[in-house]
């Protein structure tokens, strides 16, 4: 088991390298870079005095080097103007837009992003499981139709619209401040109980908004999976033993229906980050999403590159976790080699 985990982690390294290379190609695809664009703009305006400073910056960040060299310097496998100083050495790069190191720009938003995503995943699972099981076991009942109807509405409503409506209602009824993940007075203040409560209160709306579509989709899938399993012979066998319906359902078909969901954890993470960008912009959430959007628009390449890479790492970890969980839960995967033919 330990050996397996180790092997998986080691095989992640080349994957990460390939991903980082692809990421770098993508963020460098548009012509020019942030600084050369700035220089062009300054020259057009007739101001040449700052150009020298920008030229200095270009050399400072090795933007004048050839492509491959730039990539290797970014990763930290090639000596740049300051020696080996890249991602591997813990230097996440410089954000031109914010004129701060990337770490400082993203730093505050990362925990928020993770908190929000966790809350959303939890919301999706907690809501969709009971409803999915209910829908499957009482197929074609009024309840099933009702949830199906609500689910389709959830799938079809644009998230940001739902977000705006809910924010308005939350403000009217509960007096929550609009936007953000906490009341404005707490921004920049150290963590306290009040701040925590404020964050929790503000989490509700975004969680529901981001999670609705995922929940609706998850309900449909769980219902379909479970319906498949419910008619299997082994369920009849269990029933023939005289088991109670509820216990039987949880022990046999639900266990089988779980597999696709565990396998899905790896895919869920990036889609939650990238899928919630627009909602985050609309709701003014301090998450990575809007920062990424901004960075891509202004060609703030080190910032954008780091965020993309970060999401990729999250995906890889998610995949690893789901593979391990599958092995724990499904003996066919764990012991496949032992099977007698």
């Amino acid at each position, binding site marked *: 088991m330990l050996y*397996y985990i180790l092997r998986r982690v080691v095989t992640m390294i080349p994957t990460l390298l390939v991903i980082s290379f692809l990421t770098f190609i993508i963020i460098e695809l548009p012509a020019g870079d942030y600084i050369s664009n700035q220089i062009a703009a300054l020259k057009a305006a007739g101001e040449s005095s700052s150009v020298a400073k920008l030229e200095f910056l270009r050399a400072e960040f090795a933007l004048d080097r050839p492509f491959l060299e730039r990539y290797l310097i970014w990763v930290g496998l090639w000596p740049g103007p300051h020696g080996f100083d890249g991602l591997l050495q813990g230097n996440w790069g410089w954000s031109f837009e914010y004129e701060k190191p990337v770490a400082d720009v993203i730093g505050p938003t990362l925990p928020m992003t993770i908190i929000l995503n966790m809350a959303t995943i939890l919301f999706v699972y907690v809501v969709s499981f009971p409803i999915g099981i209910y829908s499957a076991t009482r197929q074609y009942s009024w309840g099933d139709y009702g949830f199906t109807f609500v689910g389709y509405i959830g799938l079809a409503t644009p998230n940001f619209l739902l977000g705006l409506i809910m924010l308005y209602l939350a403000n009217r009824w509960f007096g929550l401040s609009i936007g953000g993940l906490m009341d404005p007075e707490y921004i920049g203040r150290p963590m306290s109980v009040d701040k925590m409560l404020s964050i929790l209160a503000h989490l509700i709306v975004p969680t529901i908004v981001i999670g609705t579509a995922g929940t609706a989709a998850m309900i449909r899938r769980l219902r379909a999976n479970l319906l498949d399993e419910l008619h299997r*012979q*082994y369920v*009849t*066998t269990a029933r023939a033993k*005289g*088991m109670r*319906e509820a216990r039987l359902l949880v022990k046999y078909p639900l266990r089988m229906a779980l597999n696709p969901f565990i396998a899905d954890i790896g895919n869920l993470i990036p889609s939650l980050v990238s899928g919630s960008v627009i909602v985050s912009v609309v709701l003014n959430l301090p998450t990575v999403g809007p920062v990424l959007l901004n960075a891509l628009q202004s060609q703030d390449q080190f910032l954008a590159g780091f965020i993309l890479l970060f999401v990729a790492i999250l995906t890889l970890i998610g995949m690893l976790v789901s593979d391990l969980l599958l092995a724990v839960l499904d*003996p066919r995967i764990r012991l496949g*080699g032992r099977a007698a033919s």
Partner: protein
Amino acid sequence: MDVLTVDGLSVDFVTSEGRARAVDNVSFSVPENRTVALVGESGSGKTVISQAIMGLLPEKAEITGGRLLFNDMAGGTAVDIAALNRKGEEMRAIRGNRIAIIFQEPMTSLSPLHTIGDQIGEAAELHRGVNAAEARELTRDMLRLVRFPDPARALNSYPFELSGGLRQRAMIAMAMICHPALLIADEPTTALDVTIQAEILKLIKDVQSELSMSVLLITHDFGVVANMADEVVVIYHGRIMEKGAASALFANPQHAYLKALLNAVPRIGMEPGERLVPIRPIEPHAEGFLAGGRSNGVAKGAPLVRLEHVSKTFLTRKSGLFGGGAHELLALDDINLTVRRGECLGLVGESGSGKTTTAKAILRAIDIDGGTIHYDTGAGPMDVAGLSGPALLDYRKRVQLIFQDPFSSLNPRMTVNDILLEPLIIHEVGTPAERAERVRELMRLVGLDPRFLRRYPHSFSGGQRQRIGIARALALNPEFILCDEPTSALDVSVQAQILNLLKDLKSELGLTYLFVSHNLAVVDYIADRVAVMCRGRVVEIGETRSVVEEPLHPYTRALLRSVPEPDLDAPLDFAALDEQRASEPSLWPEPFRLTDGTAPVLVEMKPGHFVCAPGASATRPEPAREAIL
């Protein structure tokens, strides 16, 4: 004293199209410590009766009349199961405790995610009020009772690690753990090999006498009935046709349906030329392009297909997550076979013996690792492996396959017309008008109405679908047909119909068959010569009569011994089954013993009758191998 009395039971299925009566006023009883066989074709309502007794009827089924009196010998008064709430407490207390069931398909009736011990012990925990540790203990005893090789280890193994026979044993252990008064066995051996079938039947008998319980055996196999049942109930379309003691029914069947069923069962040692009488016979009519079959320069009786030293190794990469590596499986080991033009060569063996692999190799559906397969189109033998382009296309026209499962081998989204037209389109045969005519001829040939052409496969019964499969195989007017267990998924009455159809087609169209089957009686009925395979080797080959009547190889003998015959005077010799399993080549007595690396040499023991006996070949100067080929 009767454990179960079914009194005037009627079950309706309520669908949106109305009510359909599945079981109509059925009455019979199961006496204490006796076995009652419920015999009928699929769709006769026998499974619905078992579901009614178990309280497992589907939602849309409804008991409309009658009583199901269950009289538990362990004390208490008779209960009317029909009146109980199917999901209620009382029904649950009986189900799995006093009445237990084993199902047909041991592969799917156990949960793949839970250990055997967990699944078996669960019933004990539910009904006998024991804790987990005690349940484990009981389970181990039960597994020992059903003769698991290593009960303690089996507790922690998962169903997918066990063979079909062992899984069925686990199912029986699960049903037995609460010592039920009544066991319902719903086709318990239909999905198993004949040798394993015999073992399971013996096991059910042993357990029955040990725990003194009654058995309701549901089956369509008269061989099983003759060996197991004290009383027989014959059911047809939800109604009882005949019932009585097994001895009386076999000696003197009264009802026309029972007589017809008995006539449709192939028996080993039928008179040459004796025909099975199917309940619904069909007459093939060859006409048009099919009349006379394909002309081939190869004379009748001359070799058409010749396999020489064919071997095939499968590399299984089922290494689990943790370690394990590639695993080599020798599927075919030095196979020498000849199919003569105009004959039917039967290929017999247990599952995993390499029968289907051989058929696939001839079809060139898989590549072989060693040896050659030659096919004679009339212009001399040609190497099948070397065919390509137009030559391969021509070969595909000549050699066709009939599949085992008529349900999954027809595309449910294509009409019968599309299915039969497809080969003609692929091989660019004829104009559209000619093709349409051909398709209609094919339908008439297999006894189907050409008006059915626009229907989809789901509207046909199993036997009709298999006939569509045969028609598809015949569409290109082939000369050689590989039949891969074409009747093993069908009822006996339908099986007789299909076998007769294949026989008639062979003589009318001058076809050559390679007939793969695990049913020796079927092969005995249809094949001219038979080859017995075990573990990827041909162990015996010869004229069918000679092999069946005087089997020389221990494996063939064991195989023949385990075939249950529909005859009360020829019961299975259960005692002989206790001997060492005969499918282990290294345990065969000399001169038949095969160890790894020994070449399976065929020795001609009698004229035209070869046996794999590497030990004997050493003493003889030169095995007359050429004669086989």
